[in-house]
């Protein structure tokens, strides 16, 4: 599901036109690499393509920009098409592949840890009582420490739960002392 492929020629052409559309807020990665671009399918009546995208955060203001960018990319390649937003399966940072994670790191954003570990409580523990306190900061129970994207040190700390965009938290490296963004697991 994370690397959907188009098979028919028009859809394939549209896919190629769209796979380099950058994320408006983190332009170093594309909407395909982030897992936002889900599918491109040819309309049954041959009148063009339908592009399926999935929203990241429910309130992320970049989604409208992404829809516009997809339409513009199709138009630039002379392909008629419409954009369909699909909620399920819910977008997850686990769909961001190794290549894109490396791009994020080089850009100065620590890539997200797998959603199964880290600071967010799992579905099971959210409802139960035994593990709830794992999200108190003094017990900062991340399975693995987050590496500083600048110097690589794992001696880092969270400055703020929330950062400059919905998808990021603010961290600080205790070795090189630089602040950096962390792409939150979602």
């Amino acid at each position, binding site marked *: 599901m994370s690397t959907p492929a188009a098979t028919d020629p028009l859809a394939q052409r549209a896919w190629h036109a769209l796979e380099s559309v950058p994320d408006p807020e983190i332009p170093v990665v594309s909407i395909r690499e982030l897992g936002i671009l889900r599918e491109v399918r040819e309309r049954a009546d041959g009148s063009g393509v339908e592009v399926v995208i999935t929203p990241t955060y*429910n*309130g992320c203001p970049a989604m409208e920009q992404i829809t516009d960018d997809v339409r513009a990319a199709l138009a630039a390649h002379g392909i008629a098409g419409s954009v369909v937003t699909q909620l399920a399966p819910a977008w997850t940072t686990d769909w961001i592949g190794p290549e894109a994670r490396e791009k994020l790191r080089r850009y100065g954003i620590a890539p997200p840890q797998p959603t199964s570990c880290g600071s967010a409580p799992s579905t099971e523990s959210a409802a139960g*009582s035994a593990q709830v306190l794992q999200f108190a900061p003094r017990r900062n129970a991340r399975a693995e420490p987050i590496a500083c994207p600048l110097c690589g040190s794992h001696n880092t700390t969270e400055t703020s739960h*929330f950062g400059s965009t919905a998808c990021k938290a603010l961290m600080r490296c205790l070795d090189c002392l630089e602040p950096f963004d962390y792409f939150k697991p979602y």
Partner: protein
Amino acid sequence: MDAAIAAPSAAQDRSKPASAPSGGSAPHAVGSVGANYLLHLADNALVLGQRNAEWCGHGPILEEDIAMANISLDLVGQARLLYQEAARRIGGEATEDTLAYFRDAPEFRNYTLLELPHRVGLVGYAQSDIDYSVTLVRNFLYGSLMVMVWDALQRSSDEALAAIAAKSLKEAKYHLRHASDWMVRLGDGSEESHARMQAALDHLMPYTQEFWATSELESQAVATGAAVDVPSLRTAWDALVNEVLAEATLKRPALPAGYITQGKSGIHSEHLSYLLGEMQGLARAHPGAQW
């Protein structure tokens, strides 16, 4: 948590359509909730989102200013998806904007807890009276409920609702983490921070009784088999809340018997109209305006 979704009664669900909710909803598929239930969830998110956004530019520290703006953004995003789905079920001229901006207070279905101002007393007019401890305690009490509600609803037979719930759960968990962190940090903090968190908890806890008093719209939704029976979450919620309060060294107040608020039935405190007045004023002064 599977038990939290009311088990659909197979014979009933297959043979007749779910009863239409009051409020003029279009008929909906068996195993789906009515528009009113979606509005209850949406109004909760929108009203708290609007309240928390009052901190934008006024946060006690920059990081918390950003936190409240981000949390509000998530909540308004959740509300938009729910209003869009409710509008589809209501049909006619309904849109997410008519539902958010052109309904009056008695039509809102949010918990009273969420519309209260950010202060302990019920009167107070100056901006300086607002108290961040109330904000944090409310986010904690509501967030700890919503991780359970969304978790149950992501397995709802109502596919559109389940999809929204699965996304909202991810955000609710993060909001709860933020609120829980601060419950502990300030509850187990200085003498003053402890006293203020305790006062906020004493003030707000009575309003959580509304969670457990099933309203008519909730009963109708639970009868479809697609909604969550919130009182069934109470034991788990108590355990979660008690554990955080213990680490925060806060004392859970005993609840006096008395009036239980009914915001979700449209009977609100005096505070909601002011909140809506601010939120809806622009859209009503310039209907149809685009910006």
